């Protein structure tokens, strides 16, 4: 079957052991106000527009014959400054495997494995399972928000070698407020992960005034106990991609007094 991805990154060094290749799945059930990959939120292909180099030549508005351009009413192949691109492409699990396996071959012993990130890879769990099946011989890792039904969660992590899971906010109400969903399901999956015996690490993005409060960090510590825990510093470039999607960075709004 086909899935939708929005990026493949070679030489990911912070996504698990060794030098890895990370596949970014498109679509996420959460909508964190600090999200720095906003093109990963919607599963649908989106038009990305870099305004910086645009000379307003208007060439992209002239009707073209490319089927991929049709939904956007813009031609993405004509811009001399490369301002337009489509984020999100459909690809089969087999096709994707074929595309990413060469990086493993190039790196040989130096290759760490593949990491599935996003967006939220569990949102396309059938596709993910098929892809995992194509990559059986490699070390596989997921970066997940942990939000999906427990059966799916169990089924997927069983087949993986390493799990990186976020616990962003310990308080259900705050989780609802800042990510759009409560954390009940996530905490339930966390217990499954813990019991699974799989190696894992918990991550918390430190967002100023939201997740980095003493209250929140103490509460997360209580939940995860002696689990390995990584706190990620706030990404200062986080808002950069919103403009390109014609969206506003929600954190900017949130932070305004």
């Amino acid at each position, binding site marked *: 079957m086909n899935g939708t991805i929005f990026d493949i990154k*070679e030489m990911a060094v912070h996504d698990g052991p060794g*030098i890895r290749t990370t596949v970014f799945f498109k679509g996420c059930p959460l909508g964190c106000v600090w999200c720095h990959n906003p093109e990963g939120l919607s599963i649908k292909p989106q038009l990305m527009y870099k305004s910086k180099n645009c000379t307003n030549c208007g060439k992209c508005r002239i009707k073209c014959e490319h089927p991929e351009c049709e939904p956007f009413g813009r031609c993405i192949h004509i811009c001399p400054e490369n301002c337009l691109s489509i984020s999100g492409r459909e690809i089969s699990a087999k096709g994707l495997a074929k595309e990413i396996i060469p990086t493993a071959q190039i790196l040989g012993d130096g290759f760490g494995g593949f990491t599935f990130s996003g967006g939220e890879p569990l949102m396309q769990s059938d596709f993910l399972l098929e892809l995992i099946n194509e990559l059986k011989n490699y070390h596989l890792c997921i970066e997940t928000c942990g939000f999906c039904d427990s059966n799916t969660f169990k089924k997927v992590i069983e087949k993986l070698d390493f799990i990186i899971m976020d616990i962003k906010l310990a308080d259900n109400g705050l989780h609802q407020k800042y990510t759009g969903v409560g954390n009940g399901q996530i905490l339930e999956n966390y217990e499954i992960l813990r019991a699974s015996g799989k190696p894992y690490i918990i991550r918390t993005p430190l967002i100023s005034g939201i997740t980095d409060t003493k209250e929140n960090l103490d509460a997360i510590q209580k939940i995860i106990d002696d689990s390995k825990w990584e706190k990620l510093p706030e990404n200062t470039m986080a808002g950069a991609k919103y403009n390109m999607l014609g969206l506003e960075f929600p954190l900017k709004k949130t932070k305004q007094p």
Partner: protein
Amino acid sequence: MHTDLYNFIINKQHHAYRHTVDWNLGEEYSQKGLSPIERMADRFERMTNEEKAVIFPNEQIVFLRTVANLPDCFTEKEWEEIKSKYYIHELGYLSNLSPNYYDTIASGLLKMREDADEYSKRSIDNIIKLSDKYLEEAKAQGREDLVEVLTQVPRYGARNFREALQFFRILHYALWLEGNYHNTVGRFDKSIYPYLKADMDKGVYTRESALALLEDFFLSFNKDSDIYVGVQQGDNGQSMMLGGLDENGEYVFNLLTELCLEASCNNKLIDPKINLRVNKNTPKEIFTKATHLTKAGLGFPQYSNDDIVIPALEKLGYEHNDAVNYAVAACWEFIIPSVGADVANIGAMSYSKAVDTVLHSSLLECETYDEFFAKVKQEIGNECDRICDGIKNLWFVPSPFMNVLMGCNVAEGSKYNNFGIHGTGIATAADSLAAIKKYVFEEKTIDKATLLEAIDSNYEKHSEILPILRFEAPKLGNNDDFVDSIATELLDSFSQALQGRTNCRGGIFRAGTGSAMFYLWHANEIGASADGRRAKEPFGTNYSVSLFAKVKGPVSVISSMTKQHFENAINGGPLTLEFHQSVFADEDGIEKVGSLVKRYIELGGHQLQLNTVNTEQLLDAQQHPENYKQLVVRIWGWSAYFVELDKEYQDHVIARQAYTV
């Protein structure tokens, strides 16, 4: 390291001790009818007489240039005459050699004087005289430590680590003062380690105190470098080679190697330029240690691969014991210390010009891509004919003191007298050929006349094909055999075109993968190109992918750029990879970059140079140069202070793409 001295030097306070001389030596020598070597010996004598001994508080390694200029030995008119008779390389003075400092450091200048000719004797006497001025100054300042050192060296051989470092400084200083330039350092750790080891065994130094002394020594390379000549500030050729196999096949990586990596990292200065020889058996830990230096952002170390370089040099006719001893010239050209008089940067061949020429002369009449490429190959041969035939009767100004360290009159040549030719714009040429192959000959979606019109109008006409050629066509660096194999054929064509030729000194021509400043110069010789490059846009530096090519990432790049046959093209010139600073944020990231380098070496890459960049910072530095005086960037074979560069070089650095995490 003494912080006060360091700050004193980087704030250029030592410049206050400088003066200039207004001697018209050329005129005087011309009237007296002095021969070139007499002139060089006389000028050196005057310069050493004019130099004053200046010793700063806490300075461990002394010798400072106090005369900031060096009057020419010849009048302009004489140069014109010389140039009408001879081929003159660059300035006409000797450059890019790797002199044998180390035998002299062991035996002392008095010993070297025994077999020297009268000019060399005179130069030795003069540098000893200048050294004695320093000795007197040391006595006057009550610097017992320096008195002891300067009583021994340079007259006699060094007895310990400190004397060896001071001796090196004197010899290196003398070469610059004589008027030689791009005076490289050679295999420093291999040669100097025995002195350090003996001292460590005796308990003279702790690791820390040895490092501090070495940092002062490294600082000495930066005291006068602003008055050394180059295309831009920083292009001064003070390249140091570390690591590598020795004559017995043992890999050299000793305490001094480690301390050199650390000293460079701690000093954060652009000299000396650190190179590290590695091979497929080099342990991972060494790559990790070296990557700590990469993180410092100086563009060091530059790696070279013994597995590729040594056999390739042997294939070119270098004896095994010489090939294993290779070092680098100012940037990356492989040269042999002591016995090599190769002119490793005598010319440059532009692949893109060859493609452009054939595009305009023959595209319309070619029916197949193979036919077209055969003509490109022929044109590369024609270009090599023009370059090689143009170099006849090479002449250098003889240098008596350089002769002491090279053991012969090196201006006339030595054991090896080969000429190196750079090959520039390989990515632009390969991408252009790939686009022509795909769209013109295979898919036939762009017709020949349209392409020519588009290129000749700088894509004003048929502008709709520009984004296709520029952003959608196959590009070198994506592990795509369609275009990678074209780069292979180009490099092979170049090396084949140079094979079998004999140069005017009886040596051969060596094909290389470097560009030096030609990535800007050659780019301006042609207009737009078929890869969607607009007129006046520069090529990538050295053996790198095109500046605007969309590549998948560094893993695909190292795959694409290790497929070629470097065993036939080993003049030197690295692949450059740029990494964003964030990659090095933790030890884990540093180790992973180290293992990527290791993998590059295992895949058979010949030479690699990594940069740590932060584009946001560079842009800010263009706006507020006053805040970034010490910000260092890599240019083509050397590093420089960003704010001291001309804008076109700054912009090129910014345009290179950095890989983030």
